[in-house]
């Protein structure tokens, strides 16, 4: 049976810069993944509900507005409360280097900032799936 890697690309918060998320979505599709793009203005509850229903292997969060110190940990907390512990969570957008350790502590496996190649993300996903 064909097993494809399923992922959700989400933009939490009010940030409207979706070009990166869309380019990544298309790139992941071209690399053979199944991508569910959930669009702009997602609340943490929206994101978590999508994860519960779609049961993806990977969750990619994109924020360019500086709100990540609040939104990322909140999403991770809600995922934990919902009993979701085997989804690989990645972050992208504008996330200063100095914030990365804290994001990782919250449960984000890796941050892929500006200049990342699509193939880097694909390779990371393939080697770091949690299930």
């Amino acid at each position, binding site marked *: *049976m*064909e*097993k*494809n890697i*399923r992922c959700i690309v989400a933009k939490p918060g009010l940030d409207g810069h979706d070009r990166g998320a869309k380019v990544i*979505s*298309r790139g*992941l*599709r*071209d*690399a*053979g*993944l*199944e*991508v*569910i*793009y*959930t*669009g702009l*203005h997602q*609340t943490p*509850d*929206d994101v978590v*509900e*999508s994860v*519960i*229903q*779609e*049961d993806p292997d990977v969750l990619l969060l994109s924020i360019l507005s500086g709100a990540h110190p609040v939104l990322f940990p909140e999403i991770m907390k809600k995922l934990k409360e*919902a*009993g*979701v512990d085997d989804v690989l969570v990645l972050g992208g957008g504008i996330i200063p280097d100095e914030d990365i350790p804290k994001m990782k502590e919250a449960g984000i496996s890796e941050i892929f900032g500006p200049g990342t190649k699509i193939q880097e993300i694909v390779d990371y996903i393939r080697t770091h799936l949690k299930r």
Partner: protein
Amino acid sequence: MESSIKLSKTDPEIFTLIDKMREGNRRAVARLITKVENNGPEVSKQIIKEIYPQTGKAFIVGITGAPGSGKSTLTNQMASEYLKRGLKVSVIAVDPTSPFSGGALLGDRIRMKSNFTNKNLFIRSMANRGKLGGLAMATKETIHILDAYGSDVIIVETVGVGQSEIDIFKSAHTTLVIMPPGMGDEIQAIKAGITEITDIFVVNKMDREGADKRVAELENMLDIAERIVVDQNTHKIRIIRSKKWRPPVIKTNALTGENVPKLLELIDSHRIFSEKTGLRKERLAYRYKHYVVDIIQYFQNKDIERLIFSNPKINEFIDQILSYKTGSDPYSISEIILELFSKRYFS
């Protein structure tokens, strides 16, 4: 040689998940769907065996249409209406897998943002994983899972390419085909035979030019179709669609929700009509016949492949084929293999 269908391994996690699903745990539902998607009939078998008695209750609406017809937006409106009525709604949104990359962009969920956190709505996006435009078996199994979960209405939505209309028709109680307004193009967009399987035609984007034209074209086409005599003696689709149900053509505006309540009424009428006239039972029979054929074919193919590709005994037969004698051609040899095979299978 043991048959594949009997060899399937038991996955113990399944029973835990099914229990959780019965308690209403949405994550458990999602995990079960993932299992049928990734592991095929071997695993699906165990799940379906366990949950089947709890199925048969949900009302299944199938929606198909060309890209750009506004299907997903319309699905969202319909879901909203059903939710307003206090019903539990599930949506399965199927998108095509790219034949080049094997990946897919599943873009229907985003159209349903307004309802995301309504606990009575469950949305699952699925790629058809290359089943040549048809519905993967996983989709049919997912319908059963969502049925057992307690959905009152299950909406299955897919792009109208290849075989997908027929497959939707096989899986749904009521089938809708969504079309955009005619933009001067010929109604060749309507494929041959579609009048046979469509229960309701929806012309969406009714605010645009060409909507009325499209409605008129459809009505005209349906007039013509009605005059064709239906052949009762074949197993073809035609005997399924009773002549007494003429598919209504309704205009909608999926963005504003205009006419959507009316659409739901039409779906209701079709449901009542099907139950009263026995059409529902005919369709279900049609559906399950095909389902059984699919299952048997799947396991049989596996068995044959195992025999031909893995069993060393095949080499004797290959030697015969390579001898180029009379009676050693691939057809004759296949006949021999098939006979041996059936004997073992049914013994």
